[in-house]
């Protein structure tokens, strides 16, 4: 079980010496086992939203709740094991696939030789059943690397998955297969997913709900199909028409 809630979250950052609300009074709830697709122009604060959930950054005011508990009261190490994150670039360690996959459990002192079955399971899950775990991660294509990065996160058995434009460095075919993978992961493990994408098409393919954020403010939050049928706001219509960049 894992429900995420943002309660009046504001994040202030100094940019070129001026204080700036990167997130401005954001409130939104993400129900357990659903995928929230987050869209908005570049610089809107999408990445910042995700980074507040696993405490790579801290909110200036307001609260982010995980199952009703303020994340700022949870030990960050514990929190990040429960809340996995996948970035735009795979960011694999310059090690073997096996060592990348067992990194999380090894931090907790788990003996990697006890993890062989688990490694096979996550590699199957990300559609890389034939990959030899002894290979060096650097030899893989970017698409394969991104799958391994997702698998590496799954090794921690997270309850929440934060995905920050995981498809934007990939070609269309590879992107599609990653999107399908995200849906599979959600239905198999019942994980709650926050999925940031600059592609409306990608958002629509994976999302249950859609959040539009512009200049740090929540503009719309609705059922994904409802948004695509007819946004409730002027900014929403503009965004759907591709007029906001």
């Amino acid at each position: 079980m894992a429900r995420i809630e943002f309660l009046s979250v504001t994040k202030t950052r100094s940019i070129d010496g001026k204080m700036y609300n990167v997130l401005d009074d954001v409130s939104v709830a993400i129900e357990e086992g659903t995928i929230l697709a987050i869209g908005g122009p570049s610089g809107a604060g999408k990445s910042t939203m995700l980074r507040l959930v696993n405490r790579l950054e801290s909110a200036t005011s307001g609260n982010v709740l995980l199952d009703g508990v303020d994340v700022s009261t949870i030990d960050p190490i514990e929190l990040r094991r429960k809340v996995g994150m996948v970035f735009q670039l795979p960011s694999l360690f310059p090690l073997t696939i096996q060592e990348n996959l067992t990194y999380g459990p090894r931090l907790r002192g788990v003996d990697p030789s006890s993890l062989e079955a688990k490694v096979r399971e996550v590699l199957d899950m990300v559609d890389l059943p034939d990959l030899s775990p002894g290979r060096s991660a650097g030899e893989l294509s970017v698409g394969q690397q991104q799958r391994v990065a997702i698998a590496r996160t799954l090794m921690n058995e997270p309850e929440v998955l934060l995905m920050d434009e995981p498809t934007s460095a990939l070609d269309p075919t590879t992107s599609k297969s990653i999107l399908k993978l995200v849906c599979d992961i959600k239905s198999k493990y019942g994980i709650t997913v926050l999925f940031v994408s600059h592609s409306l098409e990608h958002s629509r393919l994976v999302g249950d709900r859609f959040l539009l954020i512009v200049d740090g403010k929540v503009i719309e939050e609705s059922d994904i199909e409802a948004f695509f049928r007819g946004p409730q706001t002027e900014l929403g219509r503009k965004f759907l028409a591709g007029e906001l960049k």
Partner: protein
Amino acid sequence: MEYISLSYTSLGIAVLFIVSAMAVSFRYRLGLEKDLAVGAVRAFVQLTAIGYVLQLLFVSEKWYYVAIMLAIMLAAAVKNAVARQSVQPKGMFTTLGISIFVGSALTTAVVIGIILRVKPWYSPRYLIPLAGSILGNSMTGAALALNRLRSDITHRKPEVEAALALGATSRQAVMPMIRDALKSAMLPSISSLMVVGIVHLPGMMAGQIIAGAYPVDAVKYQLMVVYMIAAAVAITSMMVVYLATNLFFTPDHMLKIEALGST
């Protein structure tokens, strides 16, 4: 054994060396004449001043004068190491100060107290040149280690954040960069172990020989010196990389972006 004492008149002839360097600069229009002149004067003033200070220390043989001198040398070493950093986050002075102090003090104490058994321990004739050599090398090692660590964390930020996001502590997340920083700090003292005596005769050994020491005695001293430098550099840079984690991360294992800079 007596050695040839240098008079100021004879030293005046040595000024011709500077003049000849200036001639090269003039001939090729390097524009370095002024720097050479200023450098020569500064060297004269600085060395003469330190000469009188040391003379004073040697005559008075008071432990607290020696201690004050060591404190000034330590402060200068720390200031220099700080100045060599391209980004200067809050707390850096403390990090470098503690590291250089601990690395140098430990090594100096072993050399003075256990290896040479100098009596009294504060005898400036031993303590000042040995501590000076240790401090200088600790300073360089500390500066190298910290610069390298910061620039590696900056370049490999995606990897560091991926590790943090998997539940690594800040120290676990930067362990690969810590190892590289330590290596780059320790390599110069290791390569000097490799070439000492082949490529150059170190200044301390040359000085001892001129002052009348037997070459074999001077060699033993020099060996102690290169060994102690290797240890001082290793201890200091290890302290630096461990303390530096607090410069670049909050206690909650978040990267402090502003402490990293752009390169």
